[in-house]
């Protein structure tokens, strides 16, 4: 909370000095630069430190973690923590579940979202405007509005308890994704291209799947990462639907790690599992930062 505070002060100082004393103009930018850099560096440290701490604790034994003062360097219980973790949850099975659910969900979502976005961007059909308005309005509806009947539908009528369909299908055609794809297609796909394909006698579906879809690869990467991360991190849905340990996705499995039936609470084991579950997303993010940022900002800015 010191962040806005300091910066306001820095801003205030600048107006005072620039208007009052021209002599200060020369050193003021340097002070300002030092202040800004210090502020940002502190923020970046606070942002990144919990990750460091998570990885360090993952290598320590319970005795080391519960000692005073804390150990800031890695311990040597990495392998013990790993073995202990496997006695509580079937980690690699849970890991695979998460990979499977998030991957299939993302592929399906990219198909539906690009189709929908393409239709809203490129066709002028009756009802287009109000259908699009309905789609945008659904963005404002919170998940909790229908959560009770949603669960009844999933469990009693579709019999999807302990089935991954429940985690893959319901959110696959997301309004946000269609909106996002529409923005992207409007800006990057020239209408002339589609007209030319039509004149050449291309059927409509061939135009989309053979001509347009290959041009959307960067969009698939950007939106795909966003959707994948969201599904990987989802908690409430899997918590409600999946009721067997072996079927859990990672977040639900992690929540189980808090209570080891044999040894009670073991922070090292818990942090080990958390690190392993978080690491793939960190790697994906660091490898594809550019796509990630593009994914976020197209949705937000071009509206």
């Amino acid at each position, binding site marked *: *909370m010191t962040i*806005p505070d300091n*910066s306001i002060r820095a*801003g205030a100082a600048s*107006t005072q000095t620039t208007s009052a004393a021209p002599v200060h103009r020369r050193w003021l930018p340097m002070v300002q630069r030092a202040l*800004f850099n210090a*502020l*940002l560096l502190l*923020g*970046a440290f606070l*942002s*990144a430190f*919990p*990750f460091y*701490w998570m990885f360090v604790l993952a290598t320590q034994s319970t005795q080391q973690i519960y000692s005073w003062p*804390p150990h800031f360097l890695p311990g040597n219980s990495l392998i013990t923590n790993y073995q202990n973790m496997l006695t509580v949850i079937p980690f690699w099975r849970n890991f695979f579940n998460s990979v499977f659910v998030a991957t299939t969900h993302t592929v399906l979502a990219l198909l539906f979202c690009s*189709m*929908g976005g393409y*239709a809203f961007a490129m*066709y002028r*059909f*009756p009802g*287009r405007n109000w*259908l699009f308005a309905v789609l945008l309005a659904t963005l*404002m*509806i*919170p998940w*909790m*509005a*229908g*959560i*009770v*009947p*949603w*669960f009844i*539908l999933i469990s009693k009528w579709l019999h999807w308890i302990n089935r991954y369909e429940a985690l893959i299908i*319901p959110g696959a*055609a997301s*309004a946000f994704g269609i909106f996002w794809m529409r923005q992207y297609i409007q800006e990057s796909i020239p209408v002339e291209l589609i007209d030319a394909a039509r004149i050449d006698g291309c059927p*409509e579906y061939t135009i989309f799947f053979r001509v347009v879809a290959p041009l959307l690869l960067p969009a698939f990467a950007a939106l795909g990462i966003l959707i994948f*991360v969201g599904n990987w*991190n989802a*908690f*409430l849905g899997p918590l409600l639907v999946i009721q067997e340990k072996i079927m859990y996705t*990672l*977040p639900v499995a992690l*929540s189980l790690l*808090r209570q080891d039936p044999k040894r009670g609470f073991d922070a090292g084991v*818990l*942090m080990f599992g*958390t690190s392993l579950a978080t690491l793939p*997303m*960190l790697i994906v*993010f*660091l490898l594809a*930062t550019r796509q*990630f*940022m593009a994914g976020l*900002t197209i949705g937000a*800015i071009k509206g």
Partner: protein
Amino acid sequence: MTQLATAVPRRRSVSLWREMRRNWVAYAYIAPFFILFAIFGAFPILFSLYLSFQQWNGISPIQFVGLENYARLLADRLFWLSLWNTVFIGVIAHIPILFGALVLAFIVNSSLIRWKQFYRAAYFLPVVTAPVAVALVFGTLYGVRFGLINWVLTTVGLPAIDWWGGTGQWIKPAIIILFIWRWLGWNMIIYLAGIQGINPELYEVAAIDGASLRQVFFHITLPLLRPIILFTLVLSTVGAMTIFDEPYMLVGVTGGANNAGLTTALYLYNNAFQFAHFGYASAIAYVVSAIIVLVSVFNIRVFGRSQTEA
């Protein structure tokens, strides 16, 4: 169209039909969204409204009770407490999340800063992390006897914090800190992209006129970012009012000491999935959702309108 319809509308309806047939591919492309939304979105929401007037535990027959669920809600101390907790956490957390993110984005974008890519990545890291994982890591940082935060506090001579005990007065701050940590970077990236979309000539003109950084921020950046601020405000409202994962992991379904961390989403979860009070839970869901939509519409009205005036 009926037989009685005049010739003109009939011709219009025929051409409308022809237009629709000509564009059948477009309808096929948007069909997945509307079909899935009808099944998993619209139907549950409507059924939820129906359920909110019924009493049902999922097994015995559904029983109509009129407005009883809503009457009970009005008198339910725990519901009002959960609403207060949620609003308190949401509002206090979002002052730094929204305003701090804006200032940070402005600073990162200014010519005074190098390593912009580094800062963007560093601030964004928390956003890709699962709320469950974040809550578990913060759970160890908040450790009462061996937690790192208390070690720092006692090292600089401050008293250690009993995060979960006492009257629960530290539970909300614990959730708020976690929430700020996770969402500041997300908003910063959005604002940064918005700031970079502002015509640089405006800044050059301001610099020639001798405008200070503060004047530039309040008179150029802030007004031009209004639509983006609106976007983040609407998303933040929904996010803050439905906060579930973090309090669930930190303090459990009861919300901890004195229910200090009981949010409306947790209370809904308890009623629906712990006690199987489906009717009552639906009433909670409807009231909270109505509040969210009202706040969103209010935001859109206020910020959207001043946007068109500007």
